[in-house]
């Protein structure tokens, strides 16, 4: 068996960082990353980007050395992706925050509202209902992170956790402040409005969960395969007929429901911002589906049936 030699150069300075000899032809990029870490322990595999061309795309961990367009002495270029943090850690942190923060406002912990309101309770039913919905939403997200989602990538750049937590925690505090405020005004159309909004919220939560389960079932544990998602027996998944990312559709729907329920402008703004971000993601996902699968259903739109 012919062995390969691998030299790793810095993509920016072209400095020779590492030379590996006697590398198996079947070695994967992941294995090469592990070997590289031995000589440069500060660059753990998750923060390594190895490519064939200094300005090219990163090679995947699963790529096999033998199958790459290289000679028996392969030259790989290295780029430091910066400190990385695991997706699970980020998700848990960014979701636990709003759960906890909202409750601080709900229980009217001191120093938020005037002292005479400390630990008092709202007299509006909708305020209690909103707390249940909001808390349920984030508990659901935490549980899904722990037990449902299968992540393609293990890590993301460390700075993301600061950005993401600022966003989630900031908006949670802003919304919670008004909904739990002593001067909160309940919805104009009263119980009717709240009931309708609650129905929308519950349906969309169930829908979102159904999609997450369907996506999980598409991919066996530990694999990174990608398949086209299709509707299943669960009626909530039938939205797949019209949309590539129904999980986002349902998520926007949940927040619209919550906004109608609380009749709170900050909630509406949060929904709008979230919708904008999810639309960007959905369009990206839709585009990669189209690129990867020739037979991708043509009726589907990224996030809103027929429209967007």
């Amino acid at each position, binding site marked *: 068996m012919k062995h390969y030699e691998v030299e790793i150069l810095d993509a920016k300075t072209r400095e020779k960082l590492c030379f590996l000899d006697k590398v198996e032809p079947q070695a994967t990029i992941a294995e090469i990353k592990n070997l590289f870490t031995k000589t440069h322990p500060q660059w753990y595999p998750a*923060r390594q*980007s190895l490519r064939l061309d200094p*300005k090219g*795309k*990163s090679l995947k961990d699963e790529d096999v050395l033998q199958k790459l367009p290289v000679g028996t002495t392969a030259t790989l270029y290295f*780029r430091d*992706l*910066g400190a*990385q943090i695991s997706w699970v850690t*980020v*998700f848990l942190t*960014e979701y636990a925050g709003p759960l906890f923060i909202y409750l601080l406002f709900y229980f009217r912990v001191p120093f938020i509202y005037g002292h005479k309101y400390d630990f008092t309770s709202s007299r509006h039913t909708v305020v209690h209902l909103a707390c249940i919905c909001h808390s349920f939403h984030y508990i659901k997200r935490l549980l899904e992170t722990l037990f449902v989602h299968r*992540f*393609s*990538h293990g*890590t*993301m*750049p460390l700075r*993301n956790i600061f*950005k*993401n*937590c*600022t*966003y*989630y925690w900031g908006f949670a505090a802003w919304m919670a402040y*008004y*909904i739990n*405020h002593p*001067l*909160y*005004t309940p919805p*104009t159309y009263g119980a009717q409005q709240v009931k309708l909004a609650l129905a929308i919220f519950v349906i969309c939560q169930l829908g979102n969960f159904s999609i997450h389960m369907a996506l999980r079932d598409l991919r066996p544990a530990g694999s990174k395969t990608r398949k086209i998602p299709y509707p299943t027996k669960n009626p909530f998944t039938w939205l797949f007929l019209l949309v590539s990312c129904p999980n986002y559709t349902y998520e926007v729907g949940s927040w619209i429901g919550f906004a109608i329920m*609380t*009749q*709170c*402008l*900050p909630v509406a703004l949060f929904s709008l*911002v979230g919708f904008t*971000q999810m639309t960007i*993601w959905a369009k*990206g*996902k839709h585009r*990669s589906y189209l690129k990867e699968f020739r037979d991708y259903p043509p009726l589907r739109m990224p996030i809103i049936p027929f429209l967007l």
Partner: protein
Amino acid sequence: MGRLTEAAAAGGGASAARSAGPPPAPLPLSSTSPGCAAAMASSEEDGTNGGASEASEEREAVGKRRRLGLLATIWLTFYNIAMTAGWLVLAIAMVRFYMEKGTHKGLYKSIQKTLKFFQTFALLEIVHCLIGIVPTSVLVAGVQVSSRIFMVWLVTHSIKPIQNEESVVLFLVAWTVTEITRYSFYTFSLLDHLPYFIKWARYNFFIILYPVGVAGELLTIYAALPYVKKTGMFSIRLPNKYNVSFDYYYFLLITMASYIPCEYVSVSTLM
């Protein structure tokens, strides 16, 4: 923004600029920084992640290599000449006023229509970025122009008692010199004939103009605070049926505080 990237310039001198490395980061339009723009919590979903920054680099490079059409070049040249002229008119009007009256009192009132016209017209620069005829990101341009619009319409125009403050003249002077330099730089670049002085001015004047402009703006906002607090202008109080509140006074305080980190970000992208 009428700026044409060196790499995309239709003329010959472009290649030299291209080999000099990445084009310079856009200089600030106003004293407040583009860098502080809302950082969307983009927890990238599956498919893009750590490589996201690389991908956007690649997209940027491709965008810069796109050649500018004839219509776009004509429009941008016209736009930049018009803006240079506008700010020149403003500068001359300010000098004449001071020479005739000997005081800065009443100066804002005399030039306000011209200022509002040309500064508001600069909103077009966001469109230029949107349609891609200028390589700056929409977000950066948006924040830069917005901060100017904020200063002109939401502070100086709306809070009449502070219009005769010295600090107003301070930022007006800084803005005028900055804009004349900037727009003439773009004009000459588009015509592919950039005098060394203009290029030098563009990259060196800001060292003085930036702090002067920031000082003028901050002092003006500071002077406006008592009036805002007293009148409760632009503010919404609880209770109301949309369950939201907004206090313009605190908003101004936060804006003032944000000048420091924003300045740091934008200056660090220039050095």
